[in-house]
């Protein structure tokens, strides 16, 4: 009997020891790294004419980085496949491909195609002068950068000004380079000064292109309470026109995150662009681990066009499985008057399912 008890105790100690095991091989460093995902989406949509449209979308993203001393090669490639109502299309894009050189802890230089992702807001970034415009319905979709040369100075201090950095960016355009920014020969210089001053992030941005109007931008972000963040961006686009966004992020005690942003543009664009020529108020409510279900969340997002009171509403849920798979199911409904932005859309509602496998 005693032997049996000793054996059981030994077994339990082994199980516990195994639970506390740490695999040191897992922390080995390599000279290269890769990561990415494959996403399969299905859209089931109903039109105003009561017609059903089924679309299938595939997306693959692969990032590969290679490190040699102070040099880093960074790259990201994307391939997309669309099958909308049996009509097929595919695209492939180099999102990023650039070389970074660390001169010192204060100075870095990089050259190639990359996205700078300037700005502090979630759905709109008026000050992101050198990034492609975001789709506020899918703010994380925009990953492709421009070909630039970029120098960064970065310095930390032990005083009210805790950190200062300066970005200097040169971007050429021609019929072959960055032509979707400007389809003619031009030169752009952009400067961004960042300050972490009294626990507040502040950016001041200047943009100069020899064929376009100069632009000036300002943004900030601050936690005014531990669970309450405010942010804003202002962009002066030319003598008459400006664009701005103000927003908050609030976390309740029961893990509900509320993200709200108000976007305004001082005028209507000569050439209409989706979203960027109107006033919007976007609210997203995201509840983590509803009913105690870990690795899951539910969300509701409402995009309100303040000019015509039409809205787009998304209700969804996300679950992260243990095998690096994420499932995102949502229902999207457009509501509004016949001539309003969302009310005039031919699609009345959408059931969207996304399955993402990370590797």
């Amino acid at each position: 009997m005693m032997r049996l008890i000793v054996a059981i105790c030994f077994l339990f100690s082994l199980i516990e020891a195994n639970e506390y095991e740490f695999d040191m091989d897992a922390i080995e460093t390599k000279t290269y790294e890769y990561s990415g995902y494959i996403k399969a989406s299905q859209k089931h949509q109903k039109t105003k004419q009561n017609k059903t449209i089924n679309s299938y979308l595939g997306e693959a993203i692969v990032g590969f980085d290679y490190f040699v001393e102070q040099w880093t090669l960074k790259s990201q490639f994307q391939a997309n496949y669309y099958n909308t109502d049996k009509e097929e299309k595919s695209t492939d894009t180099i999102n990023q491909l650039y070389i970074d050189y660390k001169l010192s802890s204060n100075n870095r230089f990089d050259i190639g195609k990359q996205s700078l992702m300037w700005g502090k807001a979630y759905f709109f970034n008026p000050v992101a002068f050198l990034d492609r415009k975001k789709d506020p319905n899918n703010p994380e979709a925009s990953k492709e950068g421009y070909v630039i040369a970029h120098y960064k100075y970065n310095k930390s201090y032990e005083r009210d000004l805790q950190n200062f950095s300066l970005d200097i960016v040169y971007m050429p355009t021609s019929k072959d380079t960055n032509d979707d920014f400007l389809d003619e020969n031009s030169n752009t210089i952009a400067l961004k000064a960042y300050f972490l001053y009294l626990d507040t992030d502040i950016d001041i941005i200047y943009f100069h292109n020899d064929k376009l109007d100069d632009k000036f931008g300002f943004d900030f972000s601050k936690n005014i309470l531990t669970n309450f963040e405010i942010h804003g961006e202002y962009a002066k686009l030319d003598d008459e026109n400006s664009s701005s966004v103000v927003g908050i992020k609030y976390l309740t005690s029961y893990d509900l995150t509320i993200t709200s942003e108000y976007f305004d543009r001082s005028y209507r664009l000569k050439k209409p662009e989706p979203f960027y020529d109107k006033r919007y108020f976007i609210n997203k409510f995201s509840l983590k681990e509803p009913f105690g279900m870990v690795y899951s969340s539910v969300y509701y997002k409402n995009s309100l066009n303040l000019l015509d009171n039409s809205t787009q509403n998304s209700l969804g849920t996300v679950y992260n499985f243990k095998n690096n798979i994420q499932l995102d199911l949502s229902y999207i409904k457009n509501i509004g008057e016949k001539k309003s932005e969302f009310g005039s859309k031919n699609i009345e509602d959408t059931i969207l399912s996304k399955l993402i496998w990370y590797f």
Partner: protein
Amino acid sequence: MKRIIGLLLFTASLLSSDLLLQIDKNLQPGSSETYKKLINIEPDGSKKEFLLYQAKSGTDKMVSSFLKPVSEKGRNTLRLGENMWLYMPSVGRPIRITSMQSVVGGVFNNSDIMRVDFSSEYNLVKEKTDKATYVLELKAKNDTIAYDKLLMIVDKKTTTPTQIECYSSTGMLIKTLYYKNIKDFGSGIVRPSVIETKSPFYKGYKSIMIYGKITPKKFAAETFTIDNINKVNDLRR
């Protein structure tokens, strides 16, 4: 008489803060890098594991990077005093977050994972002692700290915690941390290598943090800036 009592109280407070500083020093050197594993165990026994790299400098600067699982890889966090930012590769830029949020889901929140020194966040308000332990009551220095009050049991022999109860400002027990398995990490660092966490809010769930490697290391001050939040992994090379 009043002067003597005042002097005694002042001396006691100095000794107390010395004790907290000693605990901090024993848990982690001022400037160091750490590899740790987080395991969330669900009531049915299923597990989810996370591997983390962390670099710390001084009493209140820290950066973290998830190395595993691959769905979280490149998700980096920066803590600079009471400021916290999160970088996600899918978003591509740092966003401000709060210490109460949970980056990984489960019982551990950002504050547990990005723990800086106790002495930088808490004041020692009460101390009891017996033969083998100190029992310390710590009060948050301000309301931005994740837990308002800590009840810490400290092993006298190693001057490291064995148990910490974390309370909200309303006096509600949020979670209990159990420090276990004393291990010699080298360079004079002898500390518990395992922290188990249980919370009344997650009945049946358990989270374990296992320290694999702690190495004293100096970092440039600019390591702890939002411009370098996406380059945490470079520190490992």
